[in-house]
């Protein structure tokens, strides 16, 4: 850039070597995009939640009316309840299975790299497209799962996986777990690999059993990563949309409606932007909670790194 030469060029060079100026210049593109299309819509979304905006009309400020309505709306309350159940159950199962899978993959194995690559496959393909596969697996008439169970003599008629409220809930959770376990397993595996083998050797010489090694070496050293990974997992699950939209559209009898799907249904399909935005806004406090949790997870990690041997 500004090299030797005229005084004007020299001046420009000086300006471009000023870190404050250059920093601002470098931040500009990202800042414009993020302020305009992330921060602004975030604020606009909250504002819309306090209006009666519809598709095609900008809406009037109506205060808490949307929220007052939602508090008395059984469908909304059900969707909130569903969101919690869905997030909690799926996250717990994903964590348990993910940690188990990570520990398995951390063992001495042939074709380890290939195994790891294959395991992550469910996470990288478009969720919507894998959800279609689950939709077909859960089909009331042609489900291969039912077919297998019937052949094994465990049941005598096909299961309507997505037709019954309880079964539908379980089914969407299974699909979510299927997609989420690889992410958690591979992330935790990366964490496991940073634990120095000498610690296990020291523990072995100190007389620790396999379970004690896990309890006293693996878990404490992994806990900061677990905190962060699980925050992401909870966040993804809490704001999941695609899986439900493909599999059930929120049915049957709203049994699988999440806050996200309900806000889409009311806000976009139904055209009641204000009400949809109010539902989205209602999610923010919970998201903040997750973010704070993650933030302190990171802090703790930094603190641990101070004395950590890496």
């Amino acid at each position, binding site marked *: 850039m500004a*090299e*030797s030469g005229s005084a004007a060029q020299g001046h420009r060079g*000086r300006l471009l*070597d000023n870190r404050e100026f250059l920093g601002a210049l470098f931040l500009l593109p990202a800042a414009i995009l993020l302020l305009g299309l992330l921060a602004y819509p975030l604020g606009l979304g909250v504002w819309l939640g306090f209006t009666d905006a519809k598709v095609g009309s900008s809406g009037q400020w109506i205060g808490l009316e949307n929220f007052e309505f939602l508090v008395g709306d059984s469908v909304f309350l059900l969707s909130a309840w569903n969101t919690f159940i869905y997030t909690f159950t799926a996250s717990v199962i994903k964590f348990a299975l993910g940690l188990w899978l990570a520990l398995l993959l951390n063992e001495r194995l042939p074709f380890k790299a290939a195994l790891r690559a294959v395991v992550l496959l469910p996470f990288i393909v478009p969720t919507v497209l894998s959800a279609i596969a689950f939709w077909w697996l859960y089909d009331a008439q042609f489900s291969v799962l039912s077919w297998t169970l019937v052949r094994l003599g465990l049941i005598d008629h096909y299961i309507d996986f997505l037709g019954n409220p309880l079964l539908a809930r379980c089914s969407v959770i299974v699909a979510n777990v299927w997609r989420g376990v690889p992410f958690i397993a591979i992330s935790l595996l990366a964490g496991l690999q940073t634990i120095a083998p000498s610690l296990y050797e020291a523990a072995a010489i100190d007389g620790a059993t396999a379970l004690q090694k896990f309890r006293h070496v693996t878990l404490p050293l992994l806990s900061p990563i677990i905190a962060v990974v699980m925050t992401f997992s909870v966040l993804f699950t809490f704001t999941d949309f695609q899986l439900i939209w493909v599999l059930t559209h929120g049915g049957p009898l709203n049994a699988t409606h999440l806050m996200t799907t309900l806000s889409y249904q009311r806000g976009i399909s139904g055209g009641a932007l204000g009400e949809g935005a109010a539902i989205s806004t209602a999610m923010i406090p919970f998201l903040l909670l997750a973010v704070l949790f993650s933030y302190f997870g990171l802090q703790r990690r930094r603190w641990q790194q101070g004395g950590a041997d890496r």
Partner: protein
Amino acid sequence: MAVSLPGALLARWCLVRLRRGEPAGGASNSSGSTPRAGPEGGRGARRSMASVELRQVRKQYGQTSVIHGVDVGVRDGEFAVLVGPSGCGKSTLLRMIAGLEEISSGEILIGDRVVNRVPPKDRDIAMVFQNYALYPHMSVFDNMAFSLRLAGRPREDIQRRVEEAARVLGLGEYLQRYPRQLSGGQRQRVAMGRAIVRAPQVFLFDEPLSNLDARLRVQMRTEIRELHQRLRTTSVYVTHDQIEAMTMADRIVVMNLGRVEQSGAPLELYDEPANVFVAGFIGSPAMNFLPARLRRTPDGVEAVLGDALGLPLEGCELPDGSALTLGVRPEHFVIGSGAGLPAQVLGVEPTGADTQIFCRVCGTPVTVISRERHRFEPGGMIRLTPLPGKTYLFDAAGGQRIPTRDPRRG
């Protein structure tokens, strides 16, 4: 051939110069003959003046002050070593000369130019970093050519200069390799080559040898010194290793806690330390310090250790009873059995060439070096007498050297 011998290096350097029809050495600005124009161009005439001067330089980070008004002058062609314990501010000072850190107040001059606000690239300096800072994605050649390319030098010129520097440093066959394919010593040499090709006014070295193993460090020490003998480029070298400072420097600047404790030629600091800190820092094993007290007698003044030994002093102005610190270097003790300070032997370590004896005198640990192979048992008692004229006295409170004249000194 992994490493070239300094002698071979020297010979090759002379050859290069002779071939170019230049005197092989001696002239204080011999490197000025290289055709050069600085990155900015048009400053070609400043070769004659390449001193570095720091005037009342201070550095503050917020409220914390780390450099408290340092004055240092490095003459043209001098090899100055900044030495001090870690955290003394020596690296900060070097980075301020390089322009990598801002100066809070004071002035830095390179040549006769105040460079306070001059960006690093325009200061006409080259720096060798502790971790070498070789660009990992560039070959040795590209590493050395980088600054010349940025300066827009013609291709042939770059080629010639890099090859010349590579020849001098014995890197000729490694030019196409990448840093990761080189040994520690070779990397160190590439870092030096990168500095040489620019033919700068000043070389800055930031603990360049601390990542090498002991043997290589000694060898590179000599090579850097040899190189300086030839190039005569003003150099500022930072290290925490006082042996490096002693062996390499024309002038040592001892720093502590952001201040210059003393500056001078190596043996000057060794023989005439200005205070306890310098006395203890320069020399290895370190000088022994014993608590003493000043006593005025009708015959004169003497320093008393414990209640045992009195060392006559002359020309001391301090009042009777003043607390003193007596400094004696380990090699300046005579071991006897009759007179002298009673010392309890704690351990004996023969190094082959000499013997180190660790003992306790008046409750203070003392190290003694003797040419003879003593076989004292731990726990035994010996008598130590400081060599006449080889003791130092310091004010116990301030640590300043007390200018005394030992009447026995020659």
